[in-house]
C-alpha cells in the first residue's frame, strides 16, 4: 500500500511497517504461475503460466517501488537497514545451497556413479546390464543417451565469459567505492559497464547453447553430462540475468539521485548478489568446463 502516512522511525525505535497487500498478491501470483506450469507440462497450454509470470513481475515492480519510496523518504533507520543486510546475506546463502545440490550431483555422477557403472566396487550394474561400459568423463551413460556428442572446451568462449564476469566484479567494486566517495559520475559509468558486461555474458552464453545444440549434439537430454551441464549453467545464467536486471534497476536509481555515501543498502544487496553469481561461475568454469 503506497500509503501517504509514514511514521519516521526515531533512532532506537524499530520501524514496524504498516499492513501491505503485496505479500498476498505474491502468493496468489506464484500459485497462478505454478498451477499454470503444471497445466503446461500436462496438457500443453501455457497461457496461465505466462499470466502468472506477468503477475509476478508486476508484484516485484510494485513491492520494490513501495519499499524504495519508503527508503527514499527516510522511513528506515539503522536497525532496519541491518535487518535488510542480514536478510540478504542469508538469502544468498540459501541460493548457495541450491547450487550446492547440483554441484553435489555433478560430483556424485563423476566420482561415484561412473566408477560403479563401469564395474568398480559393486559390480552388479556393469556385469548384468552394461558389460562393455568403461566409464570416463564426459559421459552420457552406458546407454549413450542422445548419441555421440562433443563438449565445449574450457579455454574458448567459457574463458572469455570468465574474464567478462571477473571484470564486472571489478567494475561494480569501483562503482561502490565511487558511491562511498560521492563521485556520482564514476558511479553511473561503472554501474552501466557492469550491467552491460552482465548482459554480454548472457548473450554469449546463449550463443554457446545454440552452438551446443546445433553443432555439437550436446543437449539437455545428452545423458548425465547434458543434464549437469545445462542445469548448472542454465540456473547460473538465469541468476546472471536476474542480477543484470537488478543492476539496471540500481543504475536507473542512481541516475535519479538515489543512494548516498552512507546509506545504500539497495546498491550493496545487488553488489553482493553479483559477487555471488561471479563465484558460482568460477565453480562452474573449473568443475564443469575445465576439469
Amino acid at each position, binding site marked *: *500500500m503506497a*500509503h501517504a*502516512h509514514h511514521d519516521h522511525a526515531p533512532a532506537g525505535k*524499530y520501524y*514496524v*511497517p*504498516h*499492513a*501491505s*497487500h503485496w*505479500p*498476498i498478491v*505474491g*502468493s496468489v501470483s*506464484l*500459485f497462478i504461475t*505454478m*498451477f499454470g*506450469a*503444471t497445466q503446461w*507440462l*500436462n496438457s500443453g497450454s501455457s497461457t496461465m503460466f505466462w499470466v502468472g509470470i506477468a503477475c509476478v513481475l508486476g508484484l516485484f515492480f510494485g513491492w520494490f517501488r513501495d519499499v524504495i519510496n519508503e527508503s527514499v523518504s527516510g522511513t528506515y533507520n539503522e*536497525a532496519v537497514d541491518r*535487518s*535488510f543486510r*542480514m*536478510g540478504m546475506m*542469508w*538469502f544468498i*546463502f*540459501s*541460493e548457495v*545451497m*541450491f547450487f*550446492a*545440490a547440483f554441484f*553435489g*550431483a555433478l560430483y*556424485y*555422477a563423476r566420482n561415484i*556413479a561412473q566408477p*560403479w*557403472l563401469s564395474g568398480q*566396487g*559393486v559390480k*552388479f550394474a556393469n556385469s548384468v546390464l552394461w558389460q562393455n561400459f568403461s566409464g570416463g568423463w564426459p559421459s*552420457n*551413460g*552406458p*546407454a549413450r*543417451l*542422445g548419441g555421440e556428442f562433443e563438449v565445449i572446451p574450457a579455454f574458448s568462449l567459457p574463458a572469455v565469459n570468465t574474464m567478462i564476469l571477473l571484470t564486472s566484479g571489478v567494475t561494480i567494486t569501483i562503482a561502490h567505492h565511487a558511491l562511498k566517495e560521492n563521485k556520482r559520475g564514476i558511479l553511473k559509468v561503472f554501474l552501466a559497464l557492469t550491467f552491460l558486461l552482465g548482459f554480454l555474458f548472457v548473450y554469449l552464453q546463449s550463443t554457446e547453447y545454440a552452438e551446443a545444440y546445433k553443432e555439437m549434439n550436446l543437449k*539437455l*537430454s545428452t*545423458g*548425465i*553430462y*547434458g*543434464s549437469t551441464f545445462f*542445469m548448472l549453467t542454465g540456473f547460473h545464467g538465469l541468476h546472471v540475468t536476474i542480477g543484470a536486471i537488478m543492476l539496471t534497476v540500481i543504475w536507473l536509481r542512481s541516475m535519479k539521485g538515489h543512494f548516498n555515501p552512507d546509506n545504500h543498502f539497495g546498491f550493496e544487496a545487488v553488489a553482493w548478489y553479483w559477487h555471488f553469481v561471479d563465484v558460482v561461475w568460477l565453480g562452474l568454469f573449473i568443475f564443469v568446463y575445465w576439469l
Partner: protein
Amino acid sequence: MSASHTHDTHAAGHDDHGPMKGWRRWLFATNHKDIGSMYLIFSLAMFLTGGAMAMVIRAELLKPGMQFIDPGFFNSMTTVHALLMVFGAVMPAFTGLANWMIPLQVGAPDMALPRMNNFSFWLLPFAFTLLILTLFVPGGAPAGGWTLYPPLVLQTGDAFPMAVFAVHLMGASSIMGAINVIVTIMNMRAPGMTLLKMPLFVWTWLITAYLLIAVMPVLAGAVTMLLTDHYFGTSFFNAAGGGDPVMFQHIFWFFGHPEVYIMILPAFGVVSEIIPTFSRKPLFGYDAMVYATASIAFLSFIVWAHHMFTTGMPLVGEMFFMLSTMLIAIPTGVKVFNWTATMWKGSLSFETPMLFSLSFLFLFTIGGFSGLMLAMAPVDFQYHDTYFVVAHFHYVLVPGAVFSIMAATYYWLPKWTGNMYNEKLGKLHFWLSTIFVNVLFFPQHFLGLAGMPRRIPDYSTQFADWNFVSSIGGFCFGLTQLLFVYNIISCVRGGVKASDKVWDSASPHGLEWTLSSPPPYHSFEVPPEVK
C-alpha cells in the same frame, strides 16, 4: 485479543498501528501475533486433515485383506498424510510458535521483516491447495512415499508437477520464515540480552533456522531434478544415462535428516521452557543445553546415509554413518539428563503443559532408543522398511514433536488470549493422548521386528492381532484430538482471566511474562532492559 491494549504502551501520535478491520487484518497482516495465530490455525487444520488420512490408513489396516480402498489410493494416503504432517502440521506449528514467542522472549516490537513474514505464511495455504488437489487429478496423488524416491515417483501422473511445485512453495515459505527468525534474533534483542541469556526456545529456533536455510534449497534442487528427469529428458536418476537413482536418496536425505531435527529442536526448546517453570527451578546446565543443540545440528549434516544402509554402500560408508549417527546420542543424552536433573528436588506441579512435557521426555526417549537400534548397520538390514521404522519415527514425531506443540499451546495460550483454558479437559486430553499414542504405536515395534513391511495395504495373518490393536489406538487417539480443538476454541472465546504471569504459583521466567495477557499489539514498543 482486543485492540484496547494497543494504546497504553504506545508513544503518542500513532493511529495506524492497531489491527486493521475485517479480513484485511489477516490478508495484509504484518503483525507477528496475527501471523503467528494464522500459522497455528493453519497447522491445526493440516493436522486434522493429515490425521483423517491416517484414519483411512488405519481403517484399511484394521484387518488383513483388502477392506475399503484400492492399493494405489492407500499409497497416496500414506504419501500425502506424511507430507501434510511434516510440512503442513509440524513445521508451521513451530513457525507459528516462533512468530508469537520470539519477539516476546527477546523483547522486540515485532519480527524483523514483517512483510516477508506475511509472505511466508500466505504461501502455505496455496502450496497445500496444490498438494491436496493432486488427489483429484488423473493418475491420483503421488503414491511413492513422502521420500519421493525415483524411479517409482516418476510414475506419478498429472499430479507430479503439482507435488513438485507444492514442495517448492513450501520451501520458499520455510526459507523466508527462517531468515526472519535469524534476523529477529540477531538484530532485535533487547539491550542486555546477550546470546547466552536467551531463552532456550529462542536458541533452539535460531539453530533450526540455520538448518532450514541450509537444507530446504537442497530439497528444492532434488525435486527440480526429478521434474526435469520426468519432463525434460535429463538423466540425474537414470543409470542408463550415467545417473543413479541412489543419488536421489543421498540428496534427499542430506535434506531429510537435518529436516527431522528441524522438527525436534524447537520441541526441545519448548520443553526446556516448561520443565523449569513447573519444577520451580532454573534449567539445569543451560550452557550445556545450548552446546548440545548446536552439536546435534552439526552432526545432523553427516549422518544422512543411515537411511540408506541397504543400498549397497561401501563398507567404510556403512561404518562412518553408523558411528556418526550414534554420536548424536551423546548430545541428546545430555539434554535428557539435564531435563531430568532440572526436576531433581524441584517442587513439581503437574499442570497440562508439564504433563505433556513429561510424556515427551519419556516417549521421545523411546523413539531415541529405537533410533539407536536402527543406527546399527548390521541390524538395520533387518529393520529397514518395516513397521519398526514406522514406530520409531512416530515416537519421535507424535509424542515428541506434536506433544511439545500441545504442551506449548497449553503453556502459552493463556498468555495469547488472556483466558485460562479448561484444565480438567486439558488433563483428560493429556491422559487419553498418552495412553492411546502408545496403544497406537508401541505394537508397531513388534510388527516390525516380526517382519511386517511398511507402506503396504494388506499383510499376512500373523500380523493381524497387533494391527488391530494399533488401529483401535489410532482411532481413539484421533478422536481424542477433538478435545484439544474444543479446548482451544473455548479458551479463545472466553474463560477465567489469566494474570500477566499466568502460572503465578510457579513464577515463570522470561520477558513474555512481564507483558499483559494478552500482550499489547506491538509487543515491546520500548525495548526492556535485561540485566
